[in-house]
């Protein structure tokens, strides 16, 4: 019991209030938006707006000229459980960005970047990878050239080019459209829906689960802890008017999924019928935040000279 009392202040000093800024990674400036939704729902969704949404959302990806997603995850398994670690315990940071952009001159570009850092006791492992894809439609619009520029975790760069036949009716969505909305609307079903004060349609949901005492989170040395997982989902849809048909439509404006893992207890006592001591302030064990943003305005023309060429053999 004394050992546990000593352990608690140590945890507090180390980690209470811990978030992205106070991470074990010295250059980590990412500040997650966290568990609270960005906008408040202030009105029920009127039937008229619901009808516009239902009738237009399925095809609204066609309006998006660019989509950017970022994913930031942190895990502080070594730092939080400093007194319960093993040689396998680590802290981890993963930063990913993915962008899709469609240009006026028949080119679409995907860029993906991933950075991983993992800190074991005395060991820092850092990795970075990128994968860019350029798709260029020919003048007769029956063939598309696809260039991939990949740099693996080992630093090796590889550029490849291939061509494929192109049918505007069936292939446009595949090569020149960000296909994100269907999945997000599917994920949002079952949550709360309404209007924000800016008249955006909001879909929000929260979920919480806690490890039960008989199946706790197990730290590196085998000690059990109660850990809570909180998840928050928010998606916002804005209304616009189609320039040609003058019909109103809704499109995805932004989306965010945040998951956090909180340590709620001291080490679970190994004495039968001894109550678990819950912490006054939970300790952040890790989080993951994914954010999508969209763009509807033109990206202009893409400079074909910026597309890398395969190395000559």
């Amino acid at each position, binding site marked *: 019991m004394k050992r546990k009392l000593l352990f608690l202040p140590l945890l507090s000093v180390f980690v209470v209030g811990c978030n992205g800024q106070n991470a074990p990674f010295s250059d980590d400036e990412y500040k997650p938006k966290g568990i609270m939704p960005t906008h408040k729902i202030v009105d029920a969704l009127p039937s008229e707006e619901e009808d516009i949404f239902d009738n237009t959302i399925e095809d609204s990806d066609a309006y998006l000229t660019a989509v950017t997603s970022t994913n930031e995850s942190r895990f502080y398994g070594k730092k939080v459980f400093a007194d319960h670690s093993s040689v396998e315990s680590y802290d981890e940071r993963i930063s990913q960005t993915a962008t899709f952009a469609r240009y006026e001159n028949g080119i679409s570009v995907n860029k993906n970047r991933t950075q991983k850092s993992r800190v074991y006791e005395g060991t820092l492992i850092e990795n970075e990878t990128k994968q860019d894809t350029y798709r260029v439609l020919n003048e007769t619009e029956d063939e598309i050239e696809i260039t991939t520029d990949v740099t693996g975790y080992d630093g090796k760069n590889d550029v490849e080019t291939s061509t494929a036949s192109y049918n505007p009716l069936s292939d446009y969505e595949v090569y020149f459209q960000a296909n994100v909305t269907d999945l997000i609307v599917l994920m949002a079903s079952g949550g709360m829906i309404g209007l924000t004060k800016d008249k955006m349609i909001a879909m929000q949901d929260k979920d919480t689960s806690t490890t039960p005492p008989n199946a706790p989170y197990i730290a590196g040395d085998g000690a059990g802890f109660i850990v809570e997982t909180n998840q928050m989902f928010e998606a916002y849809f804005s209304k616009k008017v189609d320039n040609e048909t003058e019909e109103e439509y809704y499109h995805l404006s932004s989306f965010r999924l945040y998951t956090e893992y909180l340590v709620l207890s001291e080490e679970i006592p190994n004495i039968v019928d001894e109550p678990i001591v819950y912490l*006054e302030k939970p300790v952040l064990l890790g989080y993951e935040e994914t954010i999508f943003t969209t763009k509807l305005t033109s990206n202009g023309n893409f400079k074909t000279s910026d597309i890398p060429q395969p190395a000559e053999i």
Partner: protein
Amino acid sequence: MKKTKLLLLIPIASLLAGCVVTDYSPFKEDDYVPIGYQTESITRVMTSDERGILEDGLLRMDDYVTGMKSTNEERYYLHSYFGKNTPTDYEDVDSSLSSSLEAKTYNNNVKVVRENEKESFMNDYADVDSEEEEYKWTFLPTPETYETRRSMARDSEDVAVTMIDTGAYVAATDYQTRFGHNVAETADSLIDDSDLIGMNDDEMIIGIKRTSASAILELRRNSYVYALTNRVVEIKLSLYEPEDDSNPFYLPVQVREYLEMRVISEIFVGNELAKYLDTPIIIAYQEEIVEYLTTDNGDYDIASIPEVDIV
């Protein structure tokens, strides 16, 4: 842990201790004060004559009731009360529902029901008020057929009128179903179900049923709390003298049901001793009050029933 719980309890206690439910509401301008589980006092037993009149009335009352009014108020404050420990079976919102219903039967075989419902949801990220108003008209477009139309308006939306039911009508067997208010069935059931029945000082028959059950609510974060659920159902019947009959009978004037949930302990975790609160705190309630009317409503202008605009 003890400190944690004490710290948690102090703000709650300062807000709520010693209060009744209406002293605590996260909803603005909530001035509803429930009658609660305070009921009429039964001051004497019913005589056999009074019991005979009551039983006789059950066979006659449906012929004289021409309308009913009811109000229903529901409040759920579990989210704001428990915060991170909100019970696992409840949503992360406080909610408030106020509804009223008025039904009238007219002499020319028309029944009009108006229902208004105001609902509010509130938590850290939502604050939504909505209102629905519904009218239902049941009438006989021909002597052998009935039709029910409904108009519904939500918030500031346009009213939509739909036909929701139609079918054959036989006056001898279908009148009570289409145009009645099922008073006798309700009264019979509540009187049967009453644990206490007798007369009050105003010579009204009072039937009361009280039930109470305690339970351990399972909260998030592997925690628990003792809660008490109280329910009171009360029916009041007063002597009614019909204009067309010299034999009076007992007619229900009010039916009330009140249901509440009280927290009676601090939050505790497994293997921890539960501490009971000095003053239990009401965190949810529902109160419905129904009144029956015998007013002659005259005839209804059938031409004023709106036409169906949605098929």
